[in-house]
């Protein structure tokens, strides 16, 4: 390895001369599993876009911090009216886009209006649904008026889909992204890698890295050798299943963090016999979460009892509700008139948590008499058949969006779950910004979902990061799917 030799030579030189001010390495190759389809975070759902660009190339009014907190970004401060409907953002000045154009309130207004327009192809238009109007007060001030108060508005503005783009470059961002961040886009070798370099005219604190390459390593089988051979120095989202391969190797740091990914065995609540509560509860009793986590996630991941991350401050521990109990599960099936068991299908999307977990769950449900046929599907088919057409019995998926318990109240959502009591709580929650009140409501919501055994709650998807032991500053947790490189540096 030429690169290694260079480093080695340099290190030896540094030792020999005893120079303490030796400049640390400033380049980094980061492995990502999925290649972004394009490079415009405001025009696509793919998490891979954010993984490369969020906080690095593009910035929003606010941003999400390493632990899920809302931090100021292009807006250095804001004021909220008492009724919670008007937000006035004070913007940083002297900020330039990478193409040299200035950033000001017009760009902010343009970005928000573009995202919520009728012909917008923004994948998260819901984030902007509450906005009534956006007004430019002066070049450094923008005022946003909501139709109704929204507790999560500041958080929403921190999403990758809400980053600020310039009217001059908005249409070409897919190929050549122009943002205000500390890194600017250099090149994209399709199917292979995307390279970012340090931006010289960055307004904020300077970054340590000069160059960052995001290399696409699609499957875990290739990731391990790439890491072992030094081709790639960091995999912030490493397949937990492969973690044993590098654990114990002093060259690497394995960092287990939390994500907002509730991994669930989703159940089609309207399809018999899953419309029966006993059947769904029987499934919950049949699940041995420890075995699933051991087998599908290398023992990493925290069991959950409802749709909420254990890291969340509003989390309620409901895992004791359905302990692993085969006899109880059989009993419930008998109550439902299915003592002879039944057959069903289990559609599995590509990620290893689903494919591996699916095999284990199929084996566990077989123990109580439920015979599952495993059908692996690609994401496209999953979106089409399961998510859109709701043509499924059971499926496994991780819901990685943060604070998304409201999905159970959505009409026509693929769970086919309909509970007016739950909907009422969510509606109330949306109008509530009082923290204590919110906590109570969220607790109730979690309880209802667990009682109804809407889906089989499995575990919180761990965020397994593996990177060179000398690398510092990568996120440990993943409140959102992003690789924020602003604090990353090499140590010696």
């Amino acid at each position, binding site marked *: 390895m*030429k690169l290694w030799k260079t480093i080695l030579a340099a290190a030896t030189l540094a030792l020999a001369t005893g120079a303490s001010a030796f400049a640390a390495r400033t380049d980094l190759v980061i492995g990502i599993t999925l290649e972004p389809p394009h490079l415009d975070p405001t025009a696509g759902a793919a998490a891979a876009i954010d993984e490369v660009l969020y906080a690095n190339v593009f910035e929003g009014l606010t941003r999400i911090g390493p632990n899920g907190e809302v931090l100021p970004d292009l807006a250095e401060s804001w004021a909220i009216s008492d009724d919670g409907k008007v937000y006035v953002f004070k913007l940083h000045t002297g900020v330039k886009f990478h193409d040299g154009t200035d950033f000001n309130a017009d760009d902010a207004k343009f970005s928000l209006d573009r995202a919520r327009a009728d012909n917008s192809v923004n994948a998260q238009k819901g984030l902007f649904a509450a906005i009534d109007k956006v007004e430019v007060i002066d070049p450094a001030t923008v005022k946003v008026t909501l139709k109704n108060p929204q507790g999560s508005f500041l958080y929403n503005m921190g999403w990758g889909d809400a980053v600020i783009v310039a009217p001059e470059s908005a249409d070409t961002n897919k190929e050549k992204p122009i943002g205000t961040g500390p890194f600017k886009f250099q090149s994209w070798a399709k*199917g292979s890698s995307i390279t970012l370099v340090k931006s010289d005219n960055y307004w904020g604190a300077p970054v340590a890295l000069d160059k960052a390459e995001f*290399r696409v390593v699609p499957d875990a*089988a290739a990731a391990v050798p790439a890491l072992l*051979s030094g*081709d790639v120095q960091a995999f912030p989202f490493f397949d937990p299943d492969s973690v044993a391969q590098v654990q114990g190797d002093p060259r690497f740091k394995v960092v287990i963090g939390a994500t907002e990914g509730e991994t669930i065995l989703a159940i089609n609540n309207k399809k018999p016999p899953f419309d029966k509560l006993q059947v769904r509860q029987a499934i919950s009793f049949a699940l041995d979460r420890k075995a699933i986590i051991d087998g599908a996630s290398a023992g990493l991941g925290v069991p959950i009892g409802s749709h909420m991350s254990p890291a969340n401050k509003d989390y309620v521990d409901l895992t004791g509700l359905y302990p692993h109990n085969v006899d109880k599960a059989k009993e419930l099936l008998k109550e439902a008139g299915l003592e002879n068991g039944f057959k069903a299908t289990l559609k599995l999307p590509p990620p290893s948590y689903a494919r591996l977990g699916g095999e284990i769950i199929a084996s566990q449900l077989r123990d109580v008499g439920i015979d599952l046929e495993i059908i692996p599907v690609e994401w496209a088919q999953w979106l*089409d058949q399961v998510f859109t057409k709701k043509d499924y019995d059971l499926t496994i998926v991780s819901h990685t969006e943060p604070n998304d318990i409201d999905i159970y109240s959505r009409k026509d959502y693929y769970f086919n779950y309909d509970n007016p009591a739950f909907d009422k709580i969510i509606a109330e929650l949306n109008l509530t910004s009082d923290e204590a009140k919110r906590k109570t409501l969220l607790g109730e919501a979690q309880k209802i979902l667990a009682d109804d055994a809407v889906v089989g709650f499995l575990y919180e998807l761990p965020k397994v990061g593996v990177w060179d032991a000398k690398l510092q500053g990568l996120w440990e947790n993943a409140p959102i799917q992003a690789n924020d490189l602003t604090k990353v540096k090499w140590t010696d």
Partner: protein
Amino acid sequence: MPSVWTKQDSGPVTAMTAYLLKRLAIAFATLVLASMVVFAVLEIIPGDPARLMLGMNASADQVELLRNQMGLNAPLALRYLHWAGGLLSLDFGRSYTYSVPVIDLVRERVVVSLPLALIALALSTLIAIPVGLFSAGRHGRAGDTIAMGAAQLGVAVPNFWFALMLIYLFAVWLRLVPAGGFPGWGAGIWPALKALVLPAIALALPQAAILARVTRSALIEVLNEDYIRTARAKGLPYRAVLWRHALRNAMIPVLTILGLQFAFLLAGTIIIENVFYLPGLGRLVFQAITQRDLIVVESVVMLLVAAVIAVNLLVDLSYAVVDPRLRSRP
């Protein structure tokens, strides 16, 4: 039966031209049929590319809007004609997922896949022909048995498994070459070639084993021909007969297999490029299939089919170069 060789033929040149034209016409017809098959098959794929591009949270209206923008709502026949017409002018349309012209994607990938296939082909030929010659020359003796035993083993090894073993041996253990990835030709010829070494070996070895066996059996068959005896009766030693008389006559089955292997190599790159995560055509099409990027799948498959047809045509023509009898064949 009467002799076929009559005197009134108008010479090998026009016969050759006619043969060429006929082959070209057949190749083109095959291509057109293939394009229909590809288009028809891919149109029944379940999965909506528009939905995929927008993700889980998009509304039906947004999806419909995008479908219209992408031209997915036009009638089938019209879409086929549009697509096929585009192919002819090398306009393959725009990728659904990358939203760039497909031709650009293809151009970026071809510079990986083509050198890979060519290196593998060269490697397998360079291994196979000498081994075949060696074995045929020692027909039935220990050297032949050992070489053919090795070839049998080579044929039986799945190339992806072989690739895995190579990675762990040469990249992870010995760290001689990268475990995968491709730095791009811009990084210099040597690093780029280095990245292609293991994949090329993994692709080439099973093919070399097959080719060596074919070369050997073709040579042995030719060595039983009467004209070999004539050449021996001239006083040429065995080795000279092998090189001067047998090899060229044994080329036809070898060329046939070489042509077939090209198709194998193209298909083999799909798995091998995935194992080594090389950004080649194989991985492009594999990803495109999973992402339902139909336009890319259609175009790349057509390109591969066209390449196979072209190579077969080339092989047909090379028969004529090797064998003068075919030059005057109708």
